[in-house]
């Protein structure tokens, strides 16, 4: 589904991603973990070109999205993204937050988009918030709305950039619950997170990144039970 070849990204002289090749298959739930500064967020942001790779190619369903001629807006309509800081639009109601993109990209008419929004909000238990503004919601509610907003575009893959890192501890659960549901429905997901429980329970594959490389990867049970690299063992001993 997403094919990454020889991906490098440098900010000035600072090489953040160093020649990464990886493939993400349909239906997979890839969880990326690693210490801060390891390049995991940058890797995720390269997948929908929020960061422009310095070298290498990224192919999404057969289209080379690193090609300057590629219509990236169209590609992004099929890739949902959820941010650490939610990034809801504070100047719009929740309903408008959700329906703006589907309507403007002509995916749906306003009426259909409104129905979709209502259905999605009901799914995450927030239908009574449709006419509220983001400032009136808690962090956990905001993040659930952000997930719903991305889902309204009917994406083929969802990218999560530390979706629970900015939340109060008691709100982490409600967001993970929504993500778990999504995983059960078969959504292809790439998740950067520090939630090891989530990685173990939901992930179909865990990638450990450090220093701009994917140091080690495995299916979650083997990964957590028998880490092979010294750096992985060190990291896991600190976070588990």
């Amino acid at each position, binding site marked *: 589904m997403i094919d990454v070849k020889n991906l490098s990204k440098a900010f000035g002289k600072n090489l953040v991603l160093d020649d990464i090749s990886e493939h993400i298959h349909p239906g997979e739930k890839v969880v990326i973990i690693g210490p801060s500064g390891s390049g995991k967020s940058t890797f995720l942001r390269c997948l929908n070109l929020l960061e422009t790779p310095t070298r290498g190619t990224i192919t999404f369903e057969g289209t080379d999205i690193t090609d300057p001629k590629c219509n990236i807006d169209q590609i992004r309509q099929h890739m949902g993204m959820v941010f650490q800081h939610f990034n809801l639009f504070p100047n719009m109601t929740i309903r408008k937050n959700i329906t*703006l993109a589907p309507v403007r990209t002509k995916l749906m008419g306003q009426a259909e988009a409104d129905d979709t929004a209502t259905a999605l909000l009901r799914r995450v238990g927030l239908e009574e918030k449709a006419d509220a503004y983001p400032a009136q919601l808690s962090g956990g509610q905001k993040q659930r709305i952000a997930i719903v907003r991305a889902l309204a575009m009917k994406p083929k893959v969802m990218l999560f950039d530390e979706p629970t890192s900015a939340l109060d501890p008691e709100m982490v659960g409600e967001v993970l619950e929504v993500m778990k549901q999504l995983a059960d429905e078969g959504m292809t997901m790439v998740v950067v997170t520090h939630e090891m429980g989530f990685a173990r329970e939901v992930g179909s594959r865990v990638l450990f990144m450090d220093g701009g490389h994917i140091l080690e990867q495995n299916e979650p049970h083997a990964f957590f039970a028998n880490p092979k690299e010294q750096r992985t063992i060190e990291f896991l001993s600190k976070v588990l």
Partner: protein
Amino acid sequence: MLTEFAQWLTALGGRFHTAFVEGDRWKLYLEGLGVTLGMTVVALILGMVLGVVVAVIRTAHDQQRPKQHNFLLGILNLICKIYTTIIRGTPMMVQILIWGFVIFASSRNKFMVGIIGLGINSGAYVAEIVRGGLMSVDMGQMEAGRSLGLGYLDTMRFIVIPQAFKNILPSLGNEFITLFKDTSLVNAIGAAELTYQAMRIGGRTYDYMPPLIGSAVMYLVIVIIFTWLQGILERRLRQSDRR
């Protein structure tokens, strides 16, 4: 000394009577004030449109992805830079004289010429205000919009610009006040605004003090009223933040 002052004071009533009441001259001030306000509003709209366009072009140029610089955008950006540099680097009075006596020397519609001079001048300042406002909006907002598949202009229009507008409202209010007062410069090319009328009446009655002081009071009152309205609007907007 004291008697001279008393004499001056008693004569004042008559002088102001001549300048304002005689021959229904107050109508001329009102007419001039109408022209002044009309010019301010039209020039403000022109300046806002110009300013937003220039600001979006310059921001779009600065936010391009590396290695994908758009040639056309580069040219537009250069034009915008030259425009703001020239306008902000030369005196407003000189600009208005150039519009009135060089570029539109043969035009008799001084009202239009004044508006063009004022609007184009204001646009350069508004552009810088708007550009600052656009940059003050969190980058995450642009990223969120783009990640949903919205184009750059759609994201700007629905997400970034509305938020920027709220941040720059105080500065825009100041720009409006400046523009309103700067209309008095258009008097130099003979547009019949408030200062022009005051000068004309001063010339006819051989007494400049009452009409000039009178017009100054009119400018002041309007600015005070506007500042008050601006305060109300800002308090409203702040309230919506806390809702």
